[in-house]
């Protein structure tokens, strides 16, 4: 027979009593004083108010989370497991299909390599000239002629060629004047439309590759920014360095103001302030909430020049990393300041005003 050792064991032993004993204790030694009642009623009312506002937690099966039995929970866990398996299988199939698609597209590209880009342009222009559709519906052209930003910058500077990786460069030298016209005109010829679309890739480094605006409307950068902000607000964050304060340990405390950029201007309603200091430490996360997007930043070591970097590793539920902020802790603000936004797999560097 087991022996009783201490108070804790007595407490443990005096629980798990049979139902009749519990009822006897409840009748003879009730704990129903007013203070206890008040606390319990508060809890009760909180729960019932949640019910009244239809905010009850629902299980996968749609039943009340609070009222499911242990057996039901096991069934739900099993069901969730099957959902995970099915999701993994679906992801695998999609991945296989994606790889197959890429291979197929690559083969088609190889087949079409002998033809030059100019030929492709000519074919598309002819096709669309006969169909007499607005130029903006030529949404395939930006995809064909989208170049990496670095290459595009060069092309923009020269204004003459659009180098295509692995293929012949495309000449746009005779279209410079038409580009400007096409940006503001509402009626364009097929040739102008084609050139305009190609020129947009050159000039608008920050613009998206899947423009869907009709060509018979003026191509405005503000509208493009607005569309992109609606699609990915995080990609349009901007910021200002506000203050810096010298610390006792020869480091600086800096304040960085983050805000979403809409229509080319900063929207002051979404400002979040991040304070960076030496005490924050490497790896310690910072949180900023901007327009409902919870951004988390942390310091990481990069190299000797950049002593600390704040980079996002979690943005709301999207899981997208698209904002980086570099900061030289030892020299204070204004030394290595730039932010990069990620869009469609390309990096665009935006210079942040230095103090």
């Amino acid at each position, binding site marked *: 027979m087991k022996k009783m050792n201490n108070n804790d064991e007595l407490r443990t032993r005096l629980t798990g009593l049979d139902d009749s004993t519990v009822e006897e204790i409840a009748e003879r030694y009730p704990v129903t004083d007013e203070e206890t009642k008040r*606390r*319990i009623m508060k809890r009760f009312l909180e729960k019932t108010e949640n019910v009244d506002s239809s905010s009850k937690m629902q299980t996968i099966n749609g039943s009340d989370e609070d009222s499911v039995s242990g057996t039901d929970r096991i069934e739900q866990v099993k069901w969730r497991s099957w959902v995970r398996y099915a999701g993994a299988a679906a992801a695998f199939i999609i991945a296989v299909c994606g790889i197959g698609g890429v291979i197929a597209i690559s083969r088609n590209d190889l087949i079409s390599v002998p033809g030059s880009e100019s030929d492709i342009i000519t074919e598309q222009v002819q096709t669309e000239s006969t169909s007499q559709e607005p130029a903006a519906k030529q949404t395939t052209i930006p995809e064909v002629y989208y170049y990496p930003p670095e290459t595009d910058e060069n092309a923009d500077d020269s204004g003459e060629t659009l180098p295509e990786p692995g293929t012949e460069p495309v000449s746009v030298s005779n279209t410079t004047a038409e580009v400007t016209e096409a940006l503001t005109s509402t009626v364009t010829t097929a040739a102008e439309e084609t050139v305009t679309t190609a020129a947009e890739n050159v000039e608008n480094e920050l613009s998206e590759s899947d423009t869907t605006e009709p060509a018979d409307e003026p191509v405005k950068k503000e509208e493009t920014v607005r569309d992109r902000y609606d699609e990915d607000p995080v990609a349009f964050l901007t910021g200002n360095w506000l203050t810096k304060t010298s610390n006792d340990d020869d480091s600086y405390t800096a304040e960085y103001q983050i805000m979403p950029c809409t229509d080319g201007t900063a929207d002051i309603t979404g400002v979040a302030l991040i304070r960076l200091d030496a005490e924050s430490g490497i790896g310690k996360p910072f949180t900023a909430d901007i327009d409902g997007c919870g951004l988390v930043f942390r310091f990481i070591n990069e190299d000797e020049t950049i002593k600390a970097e704040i980079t996002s590793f979690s943005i709301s539920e999207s899981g997208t990393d698209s904002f980086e902020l570099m900061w030289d802790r030892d020299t204070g603000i204004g030394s290595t300041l730039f932010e990069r936004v990620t869009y469609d797999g390309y990096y665009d560097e935006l210079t942040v005003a230095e103090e």
Partner: protein
Amino acid sequence: MMKAGDAMTETMTDTEWEELLSSSPKTAFEALYSSFGGLVYAIAANKLSGVGCQADIEDCVGDVFAEIFRSAGRFSGSCGSIKTFVSTIARRRAIDCYRRLTRNSLRNESIEDEAILPPAYDDTEEDAEERIMKQRLWAAVKSLGEPDTSIIVYQYFYGLSVSDTAVKVGMTPAAVQKRSVRARAKMKNILLREDRE
């Protein structure tokens, strides 16, 4: 209109309970608590006293009454008494709270699988011994006499502190502490004597 917490709740029929549970939350709580507050609290404490604090027990009791109120549509006087209905929900909710409170410790000790597995035949004997031990323990507590029985129950069944227990039994905390020590020694002697016999 029935007034909450009055003596009528003691003699209410199950049909009247059905009507009451469909009333406002506060009215239903007053009536439920005055009739079954002690029972629900005891059921919760019986399961949670060893693993949770008083706040955990009170949370559980609040959850029980909330579930009773939400499940009012499922209660029918023709299928069983309101007391059975309340007790069943209280036991189920207490088990849920117990699982929640012990989940972390089970994970830390890496015995989750063992806890999920059905009990082996070898455990049956231990369970029987445990039940007998608890019955002997409760008999020993009752044999202490008042106010020692009350002190032990409030301290070791409900998990109240010495000061709270002192308020319950109308004594000073120091006196409660002394009596508690003596009562435990007395219980030990009772159990040892039974073992020798």
